[in-house]
């Protein structure tokens, strides 16, 4: 057995009066991929931050090669070869890809920055990740998955001895995930110790050597991955038996509630048309960058678009999110940090922002808001240590639940959910799937955009597939298979590749 490079000895941690980690022991060995799994709010990110030197534990020791350490700064941790990729991005949005990759360790040439060398190296790193990004692009202009790839490139560029990744694959598609896993294997072979979390248990099964399970801040299990099935892991996480992940599909009615005809979003979408029926769960699949998000943002008025959009037979006023909401159409963004939640504000203010007029006559009825928060915490099982805390202090998964609660508070008839279970644990996923299908059963209509194919397949009664800004096709009923969807999603892009 190799000796641990980084370990925890009796770590406990409190945020204010709330204890989130209880006497946790842990060790990470060189050349292993170690998966840390657990429900939302179990304390995974907190434990990783303690390992990565971002957070000083309330009790216990962090040991580097057996010796207690206390990193005074991130620089110290980095100098010791410990690199961490956060669950929430840590990129400077106004800087370019290259500037981000080299942030804090810029290359110089005499008194000047050596942009040429940095760009070349950035390009090599990105190529290793199969990610054709221009290093000169501003990070604010690139998509969420690309940002993740930049984060990974940034970490790869720092020659880590220990690499800690908090849900790196949450925002990636299968293809990108594969590339990342390949890189992880490469690092493992080179002797790097890798710790990572994911709510995708199939991925854990595939790549990890050992698994540690956290539940409510306690370490409840540690084992070699071979000894556990996915089902075992899931049950260890939630601490109860789990039934089927997906509920039965509801049958949609004939009535069309949303009809989009010839929608063009300049620069993103060409001539897209589709229909949504009452009581239907309609899936939208496609590769990242195929324009699913842009299409829906065009539909709800967040992006300038031309074409016709009819809600319940009536034309929708273009370019107005408010008009869409009043017509019963809402969109839940995939980017909860930049577009979904006000991280520095309370849960209550976040919850009611979209539907504020329902709480307002002349003044806002803050008692009604409080009641709504109580209901939301119950209904969506939001685990907040303190209901007055800031939204930014919720665990990632619980932020997603808050965002869902906020959207549903507007009582929409049509909900467009972009990546509904990004960063959500398996138990909660099941709750959210149940919730979506109940909505459909109540006669509401749901569009689910997801990069996780099993999710689209398990939920939707019909799936629209997009490729390079167009609608490539549609599959229905028993024809919804991974194969059929992928063929549509790739087909067009391959043909285009030939044409170029």
């Amino acid at each position: 057995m190799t000796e641990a490079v980084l370990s925890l000895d009796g770590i406990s941690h409190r945020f204010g009066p709330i204890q989130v980690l209880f006497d946790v022991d842990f060790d990470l060995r060189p050349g292993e991929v170690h998966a840390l799994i657990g429900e939302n709010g179990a304390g995974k990110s907190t434990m990783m931050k303690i390992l990565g030197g971002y957070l000083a534990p309330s009790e216990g020791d962090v040991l580097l090669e057996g010796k207690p350490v206390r990193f005074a700064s991130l620089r110290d941790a980095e100098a010791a070869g410990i690199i961490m990729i956060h669950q929430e991005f840590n990129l400077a949005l106004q800087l370019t890809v290259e500037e981000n990759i080299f942030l804090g360790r810029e290359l110089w040439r005499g008194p000047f920055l050596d942009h040429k060398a940095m760009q070349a190296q950035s390009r090599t790193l990105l190529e290793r990740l199969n990610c054709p990004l221009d290093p000169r692009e501003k990070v604010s202009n690139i998509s969420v998955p690309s940002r993740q790839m930049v984060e990974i490139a940034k970490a790869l560029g720092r020659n880590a001895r220990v690499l800690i990744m908090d849900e790196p694959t949450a925002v990636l598609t299968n293809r990108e995930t594969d590339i990342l896993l390949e890189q992880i294997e490469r690092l493992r072979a080179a002797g790097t110790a890798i710790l990572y979390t994911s709510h995708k248990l199939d991925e854990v099964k595939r790549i990890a050597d050992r698994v540690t399970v956290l539940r409510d801040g306690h370490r409840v299990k540690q084992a070699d991955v071979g000894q556990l099935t996915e089902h075992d892991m899931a049950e260890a996480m939630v601490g109860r038996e789990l039934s089927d992940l997906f509920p039965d599909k509801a049958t949609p009615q004939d009535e069309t509630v949303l009809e989009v005809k010839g929608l063009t979003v300049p620069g993103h979408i060409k001539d897209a048309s589709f229909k949504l029926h009452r009581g239907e769960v309609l899936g939208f699949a496609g590769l990242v960058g195929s324009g699913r998000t842009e299409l829906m943002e065009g539909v709800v008025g967040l992006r300038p678009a031309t074409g016709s959009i009819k809600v319940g037979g009536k034309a929708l006023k273009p370019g107005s999110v408010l008009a869409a909401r009043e017509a019963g159409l809402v969109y839940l963004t995939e980017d909860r940090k930049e577009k979904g939640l006000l991280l520095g504000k309370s849960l209550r203010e976040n919850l009611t922002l979209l539907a504020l007029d329902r709480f307002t006559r002349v003044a806002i009825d803050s008692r009604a808001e409080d009641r709504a928060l109580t209901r939301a915490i119950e209904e969506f099982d939001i685990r907040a240590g303190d209901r007055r805390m800031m939204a930014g202090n919720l665990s990632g998964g619980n932020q997603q639940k808050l965002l869902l609660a906020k959207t549903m508070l507007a009582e929409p008839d049509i909900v467009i959910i972009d990546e509904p279970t990004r960063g959500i644990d398996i138990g909660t996923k099941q709750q959210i799937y149940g919730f979506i299908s109940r909505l459909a059963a109540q006669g509401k209509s749901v569009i689910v955009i997801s990069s996780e194919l099993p999710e689209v397949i398990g939920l939707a009664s019909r799936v629209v597939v997009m490729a390079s800004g167009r609608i490539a096709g549609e599959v229905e009923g028993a024809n919804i298979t991974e194969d059929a969807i992928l063929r549509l999603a790739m087909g067009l892009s391959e043909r285009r590749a030939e044409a170029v």
Partner: protein
Amino acid sequence: MTEATLGAPGRAKLRRLNFHVLGPLLALIVLIILGAMLNPNFLSYGNVTNVLARSAFIGIIAVGMTFVITAGGIDLSVGSMAAFVAGVMILFMNSLIPYLGIGIPLIMAGMGVAIITGFAAGWMNGFLISKVNIEAFIVTLGSMGIYRSLVTWLADGGTLSLDFELRSLYRPVYYDGFLGVSWPIIVFAIVAILGELVMRHTAFGRHCAAIGANEQVARYSAVKVDRARMATYMLLGMLVGVATIMYVPRLGSASGSTGVLWELEAIAAVIIGGTVLKGGYGRVWGTVVGVLILSLIDNILNLASIVSPYLNGAIQGVIVILAVVLQRENKSAD
């Protein structure tokens, strides 16, 4: 994050309460005690009325500024705007004497003109900022110059004076009051109370804070970002109009040097009061405290001859910087 705050979050909470919520209030109380100790006349009816009435102009404007800053904006033009509004108002009233005669209707008409002019000026700023998408700093830097030069031009480089007879009729609006409280103080109090209610308890106030905190999130949450942002500038313009209505009867004139540096005083008051300069969080009561702190410093320096009143600006500057430092302390404690 520092170890101290991690280890003792309870203490951190207490400290935040002290500095952030009570800080400005404590500073105000200290100033009042200091003033009372230095000069027995400090707490006299005359002095208190004088301080409060003079604070009223800046105060009324600063209440509007609180909304602009909370929504992530800034308005540098309010001082020149006040001068311009005063100039327009005086010209208008003088030229209407033949038609309306010297009486209440003429004064009402003048007040109407002041409010409309302020509103229009604010609309112009808001339009350029939110619809044409030019940065607030640039737009209001530009309009600051424009209004200042316009009023100088209207006055032909000199002073615009209200007709003498009209002035005596209008004077009570500044110098008289109701139950011993002078009108500017009453108006300031009403504006402040309404402002606090709007900021804290209406959708508009909530939307301003949301826009200032993260404009994207606001947009995705069906907030009419452009409209709300424009409304903050229009509200501020209108309040500049109200402040001018209270100001004109005091001197009965306007010139190129009217309202110089008011914008900075208003912004300083907002910041001292605990509103975050880059937006996202604002409180009107804090602004009121900020205004009072600034004018008390001025008053105390004038009454007590320990420090030269010429150092007034320096002391105010130190206080503004201190307020921002305390704000940041609070940030890192989160």
